[in-house]
């Protein structure tokens, strides 16, 4: 410690706090501080500079403190993955602490902290090495975390069964037999449900975005009727609005490629209605229960209007076209 000099990166999005940390670290013998006010700058510095210790707040502009730590420990950055990492935060929520422990954070410092106390902690962690596992261990953990929501998402997607695009009929050798009325309606419904999940191009892409929108609205509905925390409702609302934005984006791109003006005129009318609802939804005060419920009913009605009259009745097969 006496002969060595250390470069310490301090990260906090509040300038006053960041400067306090910067000043405090610079006062420590043989320590030289670098500062970053957001996650992006921190990642750049961790990649381009030889950093010996990281002190970061958790709630900073994206990527947040935990994400930086995960990427560092997983060896994604040019900087050695086993440098000491100290979290400097005003809140220590159980989940964040548990995540920090999993990624072998060296210490949790609670704001505000005196210069002297901070200096003691820094010196301690520079001189006492903590056993950090191989980067591959953390990378595997991170990978598992990233895959988990995808798996869950796929599971959830399967529960959504509505679609506006019908599946292309499979070639059949024998003549289809006449079905009793009840069976025919079941079959029609079944056809509606068996979409190729892996089709991600063309109209199937539109189909998937509509499913996603239905799913997100249903998630919002769930948290809303269960009277969950406002924060949870806000988060679900944001996701639903994002799925509408994404649907609009997909439609814009598809329109350019797809040469079916009739289809797009009809879909455009539905889109207009959807965007009007979305604008109200985005601005709605979530404490106005009846107003939000009314909006959700309108969304449900929009949804039924859109999917109950399939815009593409049937995709033509080459054989059919030649017969015609």
């Amino acid at each position: 410690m006496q002969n060595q000099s250390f470069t310490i990166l301090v990260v906090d999005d509040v300038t006053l706090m960041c400067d306090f940390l910067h000043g405090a670290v610079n006062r420590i013998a043989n320590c030289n501080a670098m500062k970053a006010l957001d996650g992006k700058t921190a990642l750049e510095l961790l990649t381009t500079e030889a950093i010996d210790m990281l002190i970061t707040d958790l709630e900073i502009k994206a990527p947040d403190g935990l994400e930086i730590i995960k990427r560092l420990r997983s060896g994604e950055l040019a900087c050695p993955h086993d440098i000491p990492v100290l979290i400097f935060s005003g809140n220590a929520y159980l989940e964040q602490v548990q995540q920090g422990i999993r990624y072998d954070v060296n210490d949790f410092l609670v704001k505000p902290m005196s210069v002297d106390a901070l200096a003691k902690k820094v010196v301690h962690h520079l001189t006492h090495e903590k056993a950090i596992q191989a980067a591959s261990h953390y990378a595997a953990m991170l990978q598992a975390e990233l895959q988990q929501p995808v798996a869950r998402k796929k599971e959830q997607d399967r529960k959504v069964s509505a679609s506006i695009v019908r599946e292309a009929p499979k070639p059949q050798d024998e003549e289809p037999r006449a079905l009793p009325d009840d069976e025919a309606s079941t079959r029609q419904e079944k056809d509606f449900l068996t979409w190729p999940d892996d089709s991600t191009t063309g109209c199937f892409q539109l189909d998937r975005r509509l499913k996603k929108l239905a799913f997100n609205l249903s998630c919002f509905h769930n948290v809303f009727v269960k009277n969950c925390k406002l924060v949870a409702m806000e988060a679900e609302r944001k996701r639903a609005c994002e799925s509408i934005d994404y649907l609009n984006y997909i439609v814009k791109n598809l329109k350019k490629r797809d040469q079916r003006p009739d289809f797009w005129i009809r879909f455009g009318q539905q889109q207009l209605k959807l965007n009007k609802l979305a604008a109200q939804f985005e601005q709605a005060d979530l404490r106005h229960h009846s107003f939000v419920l009314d909006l959700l009913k309108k969304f449900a009605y929009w949804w039924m209007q859109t999917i109950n009259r399939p815009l593409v009745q049937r995709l033509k097969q080459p054989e059919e076209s030649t017969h015609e």
Partner: protein
Amino acid sequence: MSEAFEAYIAELKTLDLDELQSFYGELAMEELTAVLQRFYQEAGSYHQRLVNAIEIQNVLEIIRVSHSLKSMAALTGAQQYSALCLWIERFMRQDELDDLMELATYLPALWQQLEHAIQQNLRSVGTPH
């Protein structure tokens, strides 16, 4: 609720320079002035953001801003204001909007007191802010 908060802040100071010194270490007068000025500028804009966020009831922004203000104020020795931000953040995380609206009524007064205390300190060392 308001009685509970008033009781909570009764023992706290508007601006405790000893506390500020205990966090920063012994500061020279110019350094102390610089810290106060910087806090006044940065916290002022955060305060305005908090007021706006409360007005439109933007929950996430209220949590984010009160969280930052809480630490900033605590570091500077603005004990009462820091306590108010702590309460606001806590109530928002517990989703108690009615309590928030009651607490929000303290915001202008506590900020004004803090502003006044900072200005007094800056004036006493003859520094324009």
